[in-house]
């Protein structure tokens, strides 16, 4: 019984680590730009296809593959932001954040269907052999999933270092804290907005490529996960990067452990319950304030 429980927790952590990267991206963009950019889902898929092209077609090494999966959705994200979202942002009003979120959903559909047009609806697998699970203390885990977990953790650590050690990182946190004050100190929020979008979408892209290595790529690879990503981000407080990682791990573990008592058909329910719980009990999220809240 204990082994079974531990196995579910482990499965949840592996899944949570995959969700953590796009949730980080969503949170980062929200912190700096002030709206939920739902097109992270499609950008995950863009990253997955970029990695697939680099790996299965061009035969690049896995480091280069992940880098490509970061750069392509990052740049596409900035371009899409400049083209579709920036014009709406300029006409600032009471409903701007809502309008931006709605337009980002449309953007998500547009990118997803562009991918469908380019690559078709079929599944594509990476040219990486599927390995049998390892058995450790009675628990089984796949080597690829361990690598995914480690990659996600490394990226989260690198991100933390970027935000606490570099000038750009600190400036970004300053904008997230208080845009007007940051501007007074000579920080140009627009450049930072581009950088936040670039990093945020890049993270989503890497998350998507790790997910795709684990499963396969098709045009809706990312959209299937948007609910859990969004709830992970909300659970973490929408502005806290640590909160996003924590939220993702909690959602991942909750979903898997819930299957002990609940029919697997209702698994998404745990994500809804998490959002409901947070809205009712602690609307600010679990870790708000750790990074500062956007005013």
């Amino acid at each position, binding site marked *: 019984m204990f082994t079974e429980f531990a196995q579910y927790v482990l*499965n949840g952590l592996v899944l949570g680590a995959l969700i953590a990267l796009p949730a980080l991206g969503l949170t980062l963009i929200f912190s700096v730009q002030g709206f939920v950019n739902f097109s992270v889902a499609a950008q995950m898929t863009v990253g997955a296809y970029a990695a697939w092209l680099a790996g299965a077609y061009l035969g690049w090494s896995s480091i280069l593959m992940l880098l490509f999966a970061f750069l392509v959705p990052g740049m596409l994200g900035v371009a899409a932001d400049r083209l579709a979202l920036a014009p709406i942002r300029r006409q600032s009003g009471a409903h701007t954040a809502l309008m931006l979120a709605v337009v980002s959903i449309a953007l998500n559909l547009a990118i997803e269907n562009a991918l469908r047009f380019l690559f078709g609806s079929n599944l594509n697998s990476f040219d990486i052999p599927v390995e049998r699970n390892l058995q450790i203390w009675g628990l089984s885990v796949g080597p690829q999933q361990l690598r995914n977990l480690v990659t996600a953790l490394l990226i989260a650590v690198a991100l933390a270092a970027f935000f606490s050690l570099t000038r750009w990182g600190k400036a970004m946190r300053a904008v997230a804290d208080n845009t007007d004050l940051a501007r007074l100190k000579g920080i140009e929020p627009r450049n930072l907005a581009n950088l936040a979008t670039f990093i945020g979408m890049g993270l989503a892209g890497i998350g998507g490529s790790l997910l795709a290595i684990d499963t*396969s790529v098709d045009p*809706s690879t990312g959209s299937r996960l948007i609910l859990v990503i969004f709830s992970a981000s909300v659970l973490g407080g929408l502005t806290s990067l640590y909160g996003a990682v924590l939220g993702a791990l909690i959602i991942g573990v909750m979903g898997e452990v819930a299957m002990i008592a609940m029919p697997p058909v209702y698994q998404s329910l745990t994500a809804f319950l998490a959002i409901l719980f947070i809205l009712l009990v602690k609307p600010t999220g679990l870790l708000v304030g750790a990074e500062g809240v956007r005013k």
Partner: protein
Amino acid sequence: MADASTVQPSNTKQNARIIMREFDRRRFLAGAAGAGSMAAFWPRALLAQGTQPIKIGILIPLTGSTSQFGATMSAAAKIAVSNINAAGGVAGRLVEVLIEDDQSNPEAAVRAVRKLIDVDKVVSIGGSYASAVTSAIAPLCYESKTVLFTSSGADSITKTPHNGYVFRTSPTVTLQGTRVGQYALELGAKKMFFLGPQTPFAQSYIDIISKLFKDAGGFGQGLIYEDKRASYRTEVDQALRTNPDVVVLGGYVPDTSVVLKDLYRAGFGGKKIGYSFGVNQVLADGLPHEVSEGTASLVPSASEDSTAYKTLIGKMGRSALDSYSCQVYDHVVLTTLALAQAAAASPNGTVVRDAVRAISQDPKGEKVSDVAQGLKLIADKKPLNYDGPSGPLEFAANGDVEGVFFRYEQVQKGKMALLKVA
């Protein structure tokens, strides 16, 4: 959108646009109404009574989630009509098919069927594919005494009080489940586990296959999961805890591919059997060979060795054709032959219903697979037994087809290899 009747209204619309610039709104409206009624009545006025074409409705998914066979279904229906008309039609009257898109959506399907029945006065409706669509339109058909030919699987469809107006040319869910269970037993399995997403059939599959295993002294269990998930590790763990020697995969392609990967990772060495909508060439192309190797699949099959099938794929310029498009072809042919057989003065649904069995399953009739030959036999007042590209088309009392074929396939080195057709 009705294929056959698009030409004139679109011209009318074009003319109307030109007229609009020159006249005021009221005169434009009057003019458009006049043009519309002209378009509607002109052919009838021109043709003598009884020589206007007999209309057959075809309701198929051309768009939406179930549209994968829509295009070939539409092409098959058109080929059926051109074959029939080339052979002189029904007693000198031409046949016309009106193809409507159900948009993979029951609500859109109901609107389309209302139009086919009330406006076009079709004698039969063929093609209907998704079970949800067919369940929605079946009452409209049998209440208006219009024959419905369907390729849907849900058992409930022929349990409606349809008074013989519904004919099903595809195997039922029960039959598909039974065949999969029997095949698993044939392979020597004793313990079965079913893994599939929430669909209207999932629980029926579990019940049917589990019962077969129990009756054979074995054991069967199942788990219904949520589809569109990134990982099925925990579900697979739960399945493997029962130590199954066969896993039945009830999912569609995206989730089945993840389940197969997770089964492989967990080191599952037993047998894997799926359905054609989950285990097919698309799946095999998307998975590493070692993961998909040996997974079997049951596919409702067209009558692939028959002359009718070979003739049809020849006419369509294809190397193979799905069973559903073959069924749509047969829906048009069955309607036509039934009307020709009955030789009624005014063709309608009841005439079709009463004559279908006479032309498709008369044991004394001459076997024909060609519609022109069938029409000739009827003209010569000789009995016939039509076998189409989709199968021998013998119907049970409730309208379900009997004697359907399945293709038993297996993934071998990334390709679907045919094991047998039975």
